[in-house]
């Protein structure tokens, strides 16, 4: 039972995404309370005090990001919910959009109030159809009920929301990149500084938060920062939505209290490795997070006290991260060379082409791994992959090229002999098996 709940604290029914159901479980009460009794800065302070960290990948403190904006500086500000969920293995924000879109909308209203935002956006990935339909219907319900528009609930606060559907570009999940998309240009990531809270959308101070991060705001305002801090660990308060897939008996989206035992989550809550096979490796938070091997995971099964727990600081000390919450379980007998081929093909395909090291480097790495899988690998290829990964690291505007390199080096570090075997014997040690 994965611990206490913040988002999945209701039963999913065929109507749980509707406004009536959301109101019946206390929805929009936080908004009414805030508009009557709280000042914008007090809302931000509550988020700072809650210790909420971003749920999109970087785990940056959400309140500290918000403090980058002065709600009273008289210029336009923007808030964007990042629903461009494209990190392979990640499908958790979809759960919020499909089952409780009003949680996101109420949270965005609270956030807009805190940040002095008149116009906000949800940037939803282009392929999401049902999540978009549910969100769009919820937006119309919220407008009809007077939660959006002019003088919301009779207050001085006015706010409009535009649902922006992407058109197929992984890089738009990178916060600065989706600004370009909303501005009607190619979605190229932007250099920082200036931070987006200084110069973001239309050159105005802008906050971009992940859907799950924002969706947590309503709970925090309703229950208070100290109640939130009681959930999770001291350094990682709250919960995470974990989407788990791959070789696992019960894939899906789970809400896990931070600090929860990883072994228990994998082997009990998710039913263990598919078909009872031994665990080979876990990609903990989307393929752009570092791969952890079954060896590390076994360390955690050995004893829950000393074992790994699901929280930001523990995974960071293990050299990886909870990242986007997209966990992929890999069973023994899987060909890691083929798996890396899929990852490198992906990064090459999704490189936006703006920075030379990423545009060229992801292509080179993709061609090298294709060559190895075709049986034409050369002994120097593995060093070349490491070399390309090394010069990619930190030389590009966004992290896409870095992530491609990390995927390559993590796989080579942990499964080197599989790669050597493939090059020497011109075939996979595991017959190319992925399933």
């Amino acid at each position, binding site marked *: 039972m994965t611990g206490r709940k913040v988002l999945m604290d209701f039963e999913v029914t065929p109507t749980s995404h509707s406004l009536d159901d959301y109101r019946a479980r206390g929805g929009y009460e936080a908004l009414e309370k805030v508009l009557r009794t709280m000042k914008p800065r007090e809302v931000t302070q509550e988020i700072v005090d809650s210790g909420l960290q971003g749920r999109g990948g970087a785990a940056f403190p959400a309140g500290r990001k918000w403090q980058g904006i002065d709600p009273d500086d008289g210029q336009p500000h923007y808030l964007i919910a990042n629903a461009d969920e494209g990190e*392979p293995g990640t499908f958790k924000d979809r759960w919020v959009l499909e089952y409780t879109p009003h949680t996101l909308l109420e949270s965005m209203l609270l956030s807009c109030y805190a940040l002095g935002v008149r116009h906000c956006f949800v940037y939803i990935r282009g392929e999401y159809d049902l999540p978009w339909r549910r969100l769009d219907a919820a937006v119309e319900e919220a407008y009809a009920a007077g939660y959006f528009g002019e003088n919301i609930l009779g207050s001085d606060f006015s706010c409009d929301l535009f649902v922006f*559907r992407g058109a197929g570009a992984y890089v738009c999940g990178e916060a600065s990149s989706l600004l370009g998309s909303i501005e009607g240009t190619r979605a190229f990531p932007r250099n920082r500084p200036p931070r987006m809270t200084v110069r973001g959308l239309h050159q105005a101070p802008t906050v971009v938060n992940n859907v799950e991060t924002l969706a947590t705001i309503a709970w925090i305002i309703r229950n208070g920062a100290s109640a939130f801090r009681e959930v999770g660990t001291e350094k990682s308060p709250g919960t995470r939505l974990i989407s788990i897939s791959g070789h696992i008996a019960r894939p899906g989206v789970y809400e896990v209290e931070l600090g929860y035992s990883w072994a228990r989550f994998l082997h009990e809550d998710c039913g263990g490795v598919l078909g009872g096979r031994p665990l080979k490796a876990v990609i903990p938070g989307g393929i752009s997070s570092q791969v952890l091997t079954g060896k590390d995971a076994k360390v955690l099964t050995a004893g829950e006290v000393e074992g790994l727990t699901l929280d930001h600081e523990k995974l960071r000390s293990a050299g990886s991260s909870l990242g986007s919450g997209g966990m992929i379980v890999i069973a023994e007998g899987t060909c890691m060379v083929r798996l890396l081929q899929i990852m490198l093909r992906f990064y090459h395909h999704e490189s936006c082409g703006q920075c030379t090291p990423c545009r060229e480097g992801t292509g080179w790495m993709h061609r090298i791994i294709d060559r190895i899988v075709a049986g034409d690998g050369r002994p120097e290829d593995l060093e070349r992959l490491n070399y390309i990964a090394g010069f990619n690291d930190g030389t590009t505007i966004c992290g896409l090229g870095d992530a491609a390199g990390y995927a390559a080096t993590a796989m080579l570090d942990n499964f080197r002999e599989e790669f050597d075997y493939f090059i020497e014997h011109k075939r996979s040690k595991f017959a190319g098996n992925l399933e």
Partner: protein
Amino acid sequence: MKHLIPEFERLKTRLPPGHDATLLVPCLRRIQEDRGFIDNSDIDGLVEYLGIPRIQIEEALSFYGMLRRKPIGRWHLQVCRNVSCSMRGAERLIDQLIGKLGVQPGETTPDGRFTLSTVECLGSCGTAPVVMVNEAYHENLSAADLDALLERLD
């Protein structure tokens, strides 16, 4: 695209004033939904309507994977081939479709019924493998499910 302008005007009401270029991608998506692809005349229309240079529209068209300049088949089968789907049988589905339809990914059947594409992660990893047919996701697909699905698409 001119008949869609009243719809575009309604979209503007929730945007900050003075930033109409935001509508570029939404307009392109809507035009494609209407016509099936983006025609040269649509680009001309958007240059005039949004007041932005033609090159800006061309750049967006070549950037976003879902936008296309040419018509495709009635049913667009997009098979995810990323990590989680591959671990649950996506490669077998792709082979099945190539065999059954007689086309490679990126091609359309001669009768114009199907276009086959492979795509990267669709965010359906927990219900892998997934095939997107036009807008709808078909999840947890077995070989038999895929055969039955193709029968339903005429």
